[in-house]
């Protein structure tokens, strides 16, 4: 079957009324659940899982996939309006999305996030269709050494996204990596920094960390401030729509973000996280006025949103064509396929082409549903900001608690949020970047396990990092980036001195 025949076949599958309706259902539920802070795709899919046993395998998968990216659309809403990211990817969206909302441009920020997500997904589908074969080889050509080198590059590149001193940015990254060490060490089974708490054996809960660092810190700082400022002025419909200038600015970041996401998404693991951080760092680097970033730069929302949505499309490549799921949600989808008697793997394209292509087409249809569904909702979300903050914040606290609790039913995690929130507030007051802490937390354990694994594989020979071309390439790029950053920093410093 050629690709064109496959696509035609897939279209026929995806357009069946029984499949369409579940795609719509998934998109609606995913958005609604994703808007609730901390309750992400995982919780929504768990909720729907029992239904999937009773419907056809196509409908089940299409619905779960729609929930998966629907939750991403919803997650952007909580991040932009309230600075409540539930995932590291949405944490990137808060960096410029939330300042935009505070400047009364919440509508534009939401519109940008949605249109970028949509464009990222659609272009991601194109990448998937054209390059599925190549992308599936990517996964097996990356070894432990390559992953370790790639993550280090990601961390170094992203360290530049924090404002201010490099030492403060690096300190946050390192602190994040240290927090990532908490829990059972994969390589030795040792329980590190758990202090006898079984609840900590799997590490600190990511949602608790993100909610505490961002959401709670913001609430504490805002209670008094928001009341002084009064509610944001009423915005007219025209202000919701981006200006022509805004739109023009979106094109390049979306294209760059999609490309980054498409590539990294095909690597099982953290493709989505690393690509959204890298996209943000890249936009900041190529911008003519990088100082606008962190203060409401529209490119800082567009690039990362396109990247993480394109990554979540290509993430299906290793899952479906190799049978290798990259994250728990992909593992869940794989499980749903198996329940229906379909074994994803190298034979999937030959054995179940209708399923494969039907799913690909349905991604497009689902994203179209999401766009149509979400654009009219922007007005409602923005109207929510007119509620006085004193009415809003106690409710947000409750939603944060329940969001964190939903992850694994642990009240211990809620207590953790309290502690993390205070630290997050104090760090924000001192102009430290919580986003970098979160990135270190996510990538740190991956760097450690892959580095140690690479040395096990090479039986202790560090040359493995130079001998493998991919690892070596990432290494050279990292060194180049560091030298560039240092030189630029010195130049900048000299100019400042001369100016004063």
């Amino acid at each position, binding site marked *: 079957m050629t690709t064109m025949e496959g696509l035609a076949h897939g279209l026929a599958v995806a357009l069946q009324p029984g499949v369409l309706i579940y795609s719509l259902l998934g998109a609606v539920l995913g958005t609604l*659940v994703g808007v*609730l802070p901390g*309750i992400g795709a995982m*919780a929504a899919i768990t*909720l729907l899982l029992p239904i999937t046993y009773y419907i056809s395998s196509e409908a089940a998968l299409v619905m779960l996939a729609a929930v998966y990216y629907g939750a991403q659309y919803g997650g952007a809403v909580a991040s932009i309006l309230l600075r409540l990211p539930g995932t590291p990817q949405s944490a990137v969206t808060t960096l410029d999305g939330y300042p935009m909302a505070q400047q009364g441009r919440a509508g534009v920020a939401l519109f940008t996030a949605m249109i970028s997500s949509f464009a990222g997904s659609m272009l991601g589908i194109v990448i998937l269709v054209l390059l599925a074969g190549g992308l599936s080889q990517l996964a097996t050509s990356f070894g432990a050494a390559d992953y370790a080198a790639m993550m280090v590059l990601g961390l170094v590149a992203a360290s530049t996204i924090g404002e201010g*001193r490099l*030492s*403060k940015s690096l*300190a946050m990254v*390192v*602190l994040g*990596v*240290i927090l990532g*060490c908490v829990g059972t*060490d994969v*390589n*030795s089974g*040792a329980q*590190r*920094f758990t202090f006898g708490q079984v609840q900590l054996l799997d590490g600190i809960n990511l949602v608790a960390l993100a909610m505490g660092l961002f959401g*709670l810190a913001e*609430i*504490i*700082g805002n*209670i*008094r401030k928001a*009341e002084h400022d009064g509610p944001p002025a009423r915005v007219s419909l025209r202000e919701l729509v981006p200006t022509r200038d805004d739109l023009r600015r979106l094109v390049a970041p979306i294209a760059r973000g999609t490309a980054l996401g498409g590539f990294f998404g095909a690597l099982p693991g953290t493709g989505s996280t690393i690509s959204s951080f890298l996209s943000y760092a890249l936009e900041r680097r190529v911008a003519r006025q990088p100082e606008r970033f962190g203060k409401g730069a529209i490119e800082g929302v567009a690039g990362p949103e396109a990247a993480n949505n394109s990554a979540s499309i290509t993430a299906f490549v290793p899952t479906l064509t190799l049978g290798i799921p990259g994250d728990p949600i992909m593992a869940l989808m794989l499980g749903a396929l198996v329940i229906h008697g379909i074994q994803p793997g190298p034979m999937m394209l030959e054995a179940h082409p209708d399923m494969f292509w039907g799913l690909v087409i349905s991604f497009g249809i689902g994203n179209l549903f999401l766009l149509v569904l979400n654009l009219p909702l922007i007005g409602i979300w923005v109207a929510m900001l007119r509620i006085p903050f*004193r*009415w809003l*914040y*106690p*409710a947000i*606290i*409750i939603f944060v*608690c*329940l969001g964190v*609790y*939903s992850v694994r*039913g642990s*009240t211990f995690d*809620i*207590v953790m*949020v*309290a*502690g993390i*929130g*205070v630290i997050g*507030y*104090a*760090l924000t*007051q*001192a*102009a*430290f970047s919580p986003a970098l802490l979160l990135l270190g937390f996510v990538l740190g354990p991956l760097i*450690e396990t892959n580095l*140690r694994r690479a*040395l*096990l594989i090479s039986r*202790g020979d*560090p040359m493995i990092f130079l001998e493998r071309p991919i690892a070596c390439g990432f290494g050279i790029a990292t060194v180049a980036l560091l030298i560039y950053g240092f030189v630029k920093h010195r130049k900048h410093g000299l100019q400042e001195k001369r100016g004063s």
Partner: protein
Amino acid sequence: MRRDLYDLGWGVILALTGLAVAGYAWVSYDMGSLRRMGPGFFPVTLGLLLAGLGALIAIPAMGRPGQRRPFAWPETIAVVTALLVFGLALDGLGVLLTTALTVLIASAVAPRRGLGWRLGLTIAVTALVWLVFVQGLNMSLPVWPGAWR
């Protein structure tokens, strides 16, 4: 303000945290070899790195004027108490009573005083939780006191 107290304070805190992490890991975990790195290698290295970065933050801050940013103490205490109450009371009191209690505590530091609007808000949020989480999402939660031991 003669010194950048925020950076100075945080630099010292981070440096001490780094040293504590490195020390604890050095004592408690095996360092291993290059071939089979032990669980202690990373935490010790990172701890020392953080200590160094902390020093790099603190030392320049000594001779540099800093901004004074007010720290919202009452708000911090109220929000933290609210969360602790929610976390500790949930299993015993059930989600509805816990929510009501948490909202009352959290709203105590709102700039507008008075009990009337706070009671109204409490009822509204509790109803919302019942509607969204108990009825809508059917989340596995203790709803009433004594539902879970």
